[in-house]
C-alpha cells in the first residue's frame, strides 16, 4: 500500500501539465534517428519509398503516438501492471514450445488469430518493469542480502533459459545484460557481480557444448570468416568492405556500390549500418552514434531527476536497452562480435524491435512525467 504512494503522484497533474512535463528533446532525438532510417531505406530500395521507407515512417509515427499516450497514464497504473505483465510474458514464453509457430528453424512466434508476435519481445519491457517494481517494494537495507538477490536473479534467468531453448541467442543475451544492469543500478553489492563473472567464465565450456550447431558455426565463422565466404562469413566480409570503402566522407547518398549492388545481405534490417557507413562515411556513423549517445545521456539525466525509485529504474532500464541494441548491432556490423539477429533501434526496418523499444520509452516517459515533484529538482542546476 504505502509503496504505491509517492509524494507527487498523489496530487494528479492535468493532461496539459503532463504534456509540458514530457521530455521533448528525447522524443525529438528518436525522430532524428527514425528519419535517418527512412533516408537510408529510401536509398536501399534504389530511390523509392517502397517497399520499406514509407512503412518504416508510418510505423514510427504510430509508435511515437503510443509513447505520448503512455506518458500520460498515471505511474500507479504501470506499477500495478508490472507483475501481471511479467507473469503473462513468462507464461507465453513457456508456452512457445507447445503452441509456437516455427519460422526459419526456430520457434519464437505465437499466433493469436491474425496477430502473431514474439513473447520474448513482450518480456523485454515486462522484465524491466517487474524488476523496478521489485526494488520499489524492497527496503534499501535488504538489497544486499542473498535471499533478496536470488529472487530478482531468478526473474532474469528463467526467461533467459526459456529463450535459449527456442533458440534465440540474441534475446537471451538482451535479457541477461538488461537484468544484470538493473540489479547493478538498484544497488546489489559489487561482490555478487565479481562472483558471477568468475562462475560464468568457468562455465564457458558447458555453454559451448550446449549451443546449437548453427550457433557454434557462427562463432567459428566469426573467428575465421574465410571458411564460409558464402554463408555467415559473407555478411561480415561484405559489411566490412562496405564500411571500409566508405572512408571519411562516404560515397554519397544512393551511391554505395557494395550495398546497392546486393553485396550486403539483410541490408535493410540488421546490416543497415553498413550502408550508412558506405554512403555517409565515418562522419555519418559518428553522427549516428552521437545521436544515440545523446538519447541515452538525456535518459540517464531523466532518471537522476526522478525521485520515484520505480521511475528511476524503468527510465534507466529503457536507456540501457537502447544501449545494448546499438552496441551489439554496431559491434556485429563492424565484425567485433559474431552475427546475432539484433537490429539498429529505430533505424532498421522491422516493427518488432521498434515497438518494444518505444513501449519501453513510453513507460520511462510516464515515470519521468509523474515521478518528480517540480520542474527543477535539487540534484543540481544543470539537470
Amino acid at each position: 500500500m504505502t509503496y504505491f504512494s509517492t509524494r507527487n503522484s498523489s496530487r494528479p497533474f492535468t493532461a496539459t501539465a503532463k504534456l509540458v512535463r514530457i521530455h521533448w528533446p528525447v522524443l525529438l532525438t528518436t525522430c532524428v534517428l527514425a528519419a535517418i532510417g527512412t533516408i537510408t531505406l529510401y536509398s536501399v530500395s534504389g530511390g523509392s519509398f517502397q517497399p520499406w521507407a514509407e512503412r518504416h515512417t508510418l510505423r514510427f509515427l504510430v509508435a511515437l503516438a503510443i509513447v505520448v499516450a503512455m506518458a500520460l497514464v498515471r505511474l500507479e497504473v504501470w506499477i500495478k501492471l508490472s507483475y501481471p505483465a511479467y507473469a503473462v510474458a513468462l507464461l507465453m514464453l513457456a508456452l512457445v514450445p507447445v503452441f509456437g509457430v516455427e519460422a526459419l528453424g526456430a520457434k519464437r512466434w505465437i499466433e493469436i488469430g491474425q496477430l502473431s508476435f514474439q513473447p520474448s519481445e513482450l518480456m523485454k519491457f515486462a522484465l524491466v518493469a517487474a524488476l523496478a517494481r521489485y526494488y520499489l517494494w524492497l527496503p534499501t537495507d535488504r538489497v544486499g542480502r542473498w535471499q533478496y538477490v536470488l529472487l530478482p536473479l531468478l526473474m532474469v534467468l528463467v526467461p533467459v533459459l526459456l529463450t535459449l531453448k527456442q533458440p534465440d541467442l540474441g534475446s537471451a543475451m538482451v535479457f541477461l545484460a538488461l537484468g544484470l544492469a538493473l540489479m547493478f543500478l538498484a544497488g546489489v553489492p559489487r561482490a555478487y557481480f565479481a562472483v558471477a563473472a568468475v562462475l560464468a567464465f568457468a562455465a564457458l565450456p558447458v555453454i559451448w557444448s550446449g549451443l546449437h550447431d548453427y550457433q557454434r558455426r557462427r562463432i567459428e565463422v566469426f573467428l575465421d570468416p574465410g571458411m564460409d565466404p558464402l554463408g555467415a562469413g559473407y555478411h561480415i566480409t561484405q559489411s566490412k568492405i562496405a564500411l571500409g570503402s566508405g572512408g571519411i566522407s562516404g560515397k554519397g547518398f544512393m551511391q554505395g556500390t557494395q550495398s546497392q549492388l546486393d553485396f550486403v545481405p539483410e541490408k535493410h534490417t540488421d546490416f543497415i549500418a553498413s550502408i550508412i557507413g558506405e554512403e555517409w562515411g565515418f562522419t555519418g556513423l559518428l553522427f549516428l552514434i552521437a545521436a544515440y549517445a545523446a538519447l541515452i545521456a538525456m535518459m540517464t539525466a531523466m532518471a537522476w531527476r526522478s525521485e520515484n525509485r520505480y521511475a528511476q529504474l524503468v527510465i534507466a532500464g529503457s536507456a540501457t536497452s537502447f544501449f545494448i541494441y546499438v552496441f551489439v548491432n554496431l559491434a556485429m556490423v563492424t565484425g567485433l562480435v559474431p552475427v546475432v539477429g539484433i537490429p539498429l533501434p529505430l533505424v532498421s526496418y522491422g516493427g518488432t524491435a521498434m515497438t518494444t523499444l518505444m513501449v519501453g520509452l513510453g513507460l520511462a516517459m510516464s515515470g519521468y512525467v509523474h515521478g518528480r515533484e517540480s520542474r527543477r529538482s535539487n540534484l543540481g542546476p544543470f539537470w
Partner: protein
Amino acid sequence: MPDRDDATRERERRFTRRSLILGSAQTAGFLLIGWRLFDLQVLERGHYAPLADENRIDLQILAPRRGRILDDAGRPLADNKEIFSATVTPASAKDLQALLARVRQILPLTDGAVAEIVQRSKKQNRSRPVMIASELTFDELAKLNLFAPSLPGIGTEATWRRRYHGGESIGHVVGFVGSVDRFGVDDDAVLRLPDTRIGKRGVEAGFESVLRGSGGTQKIEVDARGRMVRTLETIEPVHGRDVMLSIDADLQKAVLGRMQRERTAAAVVIDVKTGEIVALVSVPGFDPAAIASGISEAEWRKLATAEDKPLLNRVVSGQYAPGSTFKIVTALAALDAGVVSPDERISCPGHYRLGNRTYPCWKSAGHGDLTIHEALRCSCDVFFYEIARRSGIDKIAAAARRLGLGAIYDFGLTEEKAGIIPDRDWKRGNFNAPWLGGETLLTGIGQGYVQTTPLQLALMTARVAGGRAILPSIEKKTHSIEFAVLPFQPAHLDIVRNGMLAAVNDDGGAAEKARLGSGRPQIAGQAGTAALTARENVAQENGRQNSRRNHAIVVAYTPFDAPRYAIATVIEHTSTSDDTAAPLARDILNLVLDHDDASRIHKNTTGEGVAPPRGTGVPHTTETAG
C-alpha cells in the same frame, strides 16, 4: 524522521554513482565502436576501398537449374526455358544516350523505352544495372555479344524461366513456383539470388529440396568499370534432380475433361499394389503456367478468395465426413473384435433406439433381417449402429487408423490435411467431455466428428482391396516395395470385399451406378453422403440453394478378382451419391482401364495383375489418348 531521509538520500546517491559507472561503461563501448570504425574507414580505407571499386573480386553465386517434373512416360510437366535479357550499367557507360542509340541498331527500342531507361538510371545507383530488354531472340543475343567490346556497360544475363505443360489438368499435382518471401542469414545462398523461384504448392513445394539443387560459385576479377577481366575460380552448380511422377499427362487431361462436368469435385486413383497415385484431379483448378508467368495481384486475389476455392487441392486438403463409405471400417472393426459373425442376422425396423433417443435408417420402412454382407450391399444404417455399439469407439478408431485414415503421409503434396478419427482421448482433448454412446453410432456410419480426405478414402479402399498396408506415392517407383500385410483376417476382408461387390453389382445395391458395362472388369465399392453439420447449414443459409446440399462420396476398386486400381470421388453439394459420384467413379475407372490397355498395347508388354478382357462399345474410349 531523519533516519529515513538519510537512507533515501544515500540510496539516491548510490543510484547516481552506479549509473555514472554504467554510463562510463557505455561511453567506453561507444568509444570502442568509434575506434573500430576509425580503423576500418579511415586507417584501413586503403585496404578496403580497392576491394569495393577497382579490380574488385566479385564472388558470384551460380544458380542451379531447377529439376524438371515429368509424367510417368517421361514427358515434361514442368521444365525450364533459358531466357536472356540485356542490361546497361550507367557507371560503365561514358555517354548513355549515344550508347543506347547504338544499341537501337540491334534491339528494337522505342523512344519511350529509351527515355524510361535514362530516367531510371538517373534515379538509382549508377553502378547498378538497368534492364533494357528481356526475352532476347537468339539473333539479338548473338549480335550483342559480337559487338560487346564497342558497347561498354551493356551486359546480357541468362535466367531460367519455369514452364508448365498441361494447364489445369496438372495444376493441383505439380503446383507452382514463386519468388522467395524472406530468407535468413543461415539459409541457402541460392535463395539470395533475385531470380530464384521456389516451390509454393504441390510437387514443386513438396520436392523442393530435390528440385532446387545447390548453387555454385564463380570468382571473377572486374576492372574499375565493372567489366570482367578474368575468371579466377569456378565451382559448377549442382543442378536439381528431375522428379518423375506416377501420373500420366494424357490420363490427367481425360479425367479432368470428365470432371469438368461437375462444379466442385475431387477424384484420386491409387495403384492398389504400389500405392502410386495414378490420377489426381480437383475441380475447380488453376493453370500453373498462368501463375508462374507473372500473375497480377488482382487476378491472384481473385483466385485466392474465390468462393469455390480453385487453389484448394480437395484431394488432400478437403476434409469430408466419409458417410456410408466408413461402413467398410465399421464392418472390419466388428468382425475383427468378434462381436458379429458372418452369418448373424440383425433386424432393421427402419430405426434404432439407444437410451431415449431414436436413430433413423435411411430407409424408414426398414430392411428386415440382414447379414453383414447384405447390410453392406444396401448400406443399412441400423445394422451398423448395432455392430458399432457392440465394437465400441476405440476398436472402430483403431481399425480406421489401420486402414490409413486420420494420418498425414507427407508424400510430396504439401497441403495434406490429417482429417479426424475421433475416439475417447480425442473428445477429452478437444471438448473436455466424455464420449457418448450415440456418438459411437454416428461414427459407425461415418457421420458426426469423422473427417477424411479423398486421398485417405482411396488409400483405405486400396488397403482393403489389396490386403496390404500400402503408402501413397506421387513419385514413380523404380523398384517395388513389399508392404506389410494388413492386420485383419483374410476371411474378414473377403466378406467386406464381397459386400462392396454386391453394393455395385446387385440390383438395388448402394453404389449401383458405378457398374461398368458387361464384358468389362467388375467394380466393387461403396457410396456415402457427407451430411453437412448444422453449423455449416446455418453458415450456408444465405448462399445459393445448392450450397446447402450434402456432399456425395464414392469409393471403389477394380478389377474385383485381381485388384489394380482404387478410387475415391467426392462431389460437393449435389444430390444422392449413387446418381452423381458413382457414375463419376465408374467413368474415371473406365478411363484408367482404357489408358492401361492402350499403354500396354503400346509397350507390347503385359502388366501386373490379371489382364482384364477388352470391352466393346464403351462410350468413353474416345476421351483417352494413346
